């Protein structure tokens, strides 16, 4: 029997969109009851998987191997964050007002259980919401090369193609030599962002003060469209204003956030983490 041709992609997109809209409606309309279940599901999330997973599982999300309980909780909670942020972020891209920043920082503090700020000691960036572009890896010590940069073959396979920037970051090398490089130095390079420090309010009259403040300043970076959050440091200054981007992310950061450069570039939230005792680890928040 001859089979009919079929516009699979078009059909798939149409019904995926219909489904996502319905998921959002459900989460918005019955948020209190669903949040109650989610917050109380730790002891029985495995059994919840069968009954309610479809409510919050995005279409196309193939369940991977690993602990389904963790997977379920992560997907579930991230979608609540996405839904909450959508109500706080303006539909058209623009910088936030202080009032909006306050509300979003509070929401992120509550969700991630961290002290999130848009301003610390009267110091802030030009924006907390901006388009992110892809940066290259940074040399961590004199003589660091693509051949020495990665700790495993898997990392090299995934991230080497992003290349190593020819110059150093705004703060110089992360370590004086390979022997002196610590785990913290490795993670700072792996999870760094470049922000437009030079556009901070009153930057020119406060260069020294700002430089010390921004150097390896811990920040929370969130993709508001999927709820992925990662703890990063300010590892470089940039990008230039003419690029029409507001910040840059290391290859590892971009990969985790599922943000891409070029025409597909998208916005992220980036706020300071007040962590004076340096207790919050860098990297993706699982």
């Amino acid at each position, binding site marked *: 029997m001859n089979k009919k041709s079929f516009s699979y992609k078009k059909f798939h997109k149409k019904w995926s969109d219909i489904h996502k809209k319905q998921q959002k409606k459900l989460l918005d309309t019955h948020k209190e009851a669903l949040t109650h279940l989610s917050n109380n599901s730790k002891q029985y999330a495995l*059994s919840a998987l069968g009954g*309610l997973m479809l409510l919050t599982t995005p279409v196309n999300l193939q369940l991977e191997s690993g602990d389904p309980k963790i997977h379920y909780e992560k997907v579930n909670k991230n979608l609540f964050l996405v839904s909450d942020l959508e109500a706080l972020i303006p539909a058209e891209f623009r910088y936030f007002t202080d009032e909006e920043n306050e509300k979003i920082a509070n929401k992120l503090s509550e969700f991630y259980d961290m002290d999130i700020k848009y301003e610390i000691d009267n110091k802030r960036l030009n924006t907390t919401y901006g388009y992110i572009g892809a940066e290259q890896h940074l040399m961590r010590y004199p003589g660091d090369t693509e051949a020495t940069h990665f700790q495993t073959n898997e990392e090299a396979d995934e991230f080497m193609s992003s290349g190593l920037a020819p110059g150093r970051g705004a703060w110089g090398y992360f370590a004086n030599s390979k022997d002196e490089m610590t785990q913290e130095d490795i993670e700072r390079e792996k999870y760094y962002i470049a922000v437009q420090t030079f556009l901070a309010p009153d930057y020119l009259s406060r260069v020294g003060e700002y430089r010390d403040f921004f150097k390896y300043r811990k920040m929370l970076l969130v993709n508001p469209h999927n709820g992925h959050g990662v703890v990063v440091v300010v590892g470089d200054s940039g990008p230039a204003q003419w690029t029409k981007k507001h910040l840059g992310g290391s290859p590892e950061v971009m990969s985790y956030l599922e943000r891409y450069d070029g025409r597909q570039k998208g916005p992220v939230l980036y706020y300071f983490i007040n962590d004076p005792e340096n207790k919050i680890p860098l990297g993706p928040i699982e």
Partner: protein
Amino acid sequence: MKNKFYSHIFTIEPVHNILSSLDIEEDEKKELLDILQSHIHVTVIDIILSELDEGKKKEFLHLVGVKEDNDGAWNFVLANIEKGEDKVKEAIDRIVADFVNDLEKHSF
């Protein structure tokens, strides 16, 4: 997909029939069925929750999500929602019909 508490009141046989007449891969068929079943599930839960107060919503979600008690959940619907079966069935039938019509529109 595992049986749901409402699985006994509908069939997606028409969807299977039309999918088997289309020139698409098996994994694509499975993907479309997954979307349909997820969409039905989300819609059914939404319809039921919309008929309940906050306390009853939590009670129902506990039955479905925690106890996975299909009989208990269905009896809960029948006991707490006027014409509950009709409302759920009507919503599912409409989704399945829309899906089938749309499959036909996208085939040539």
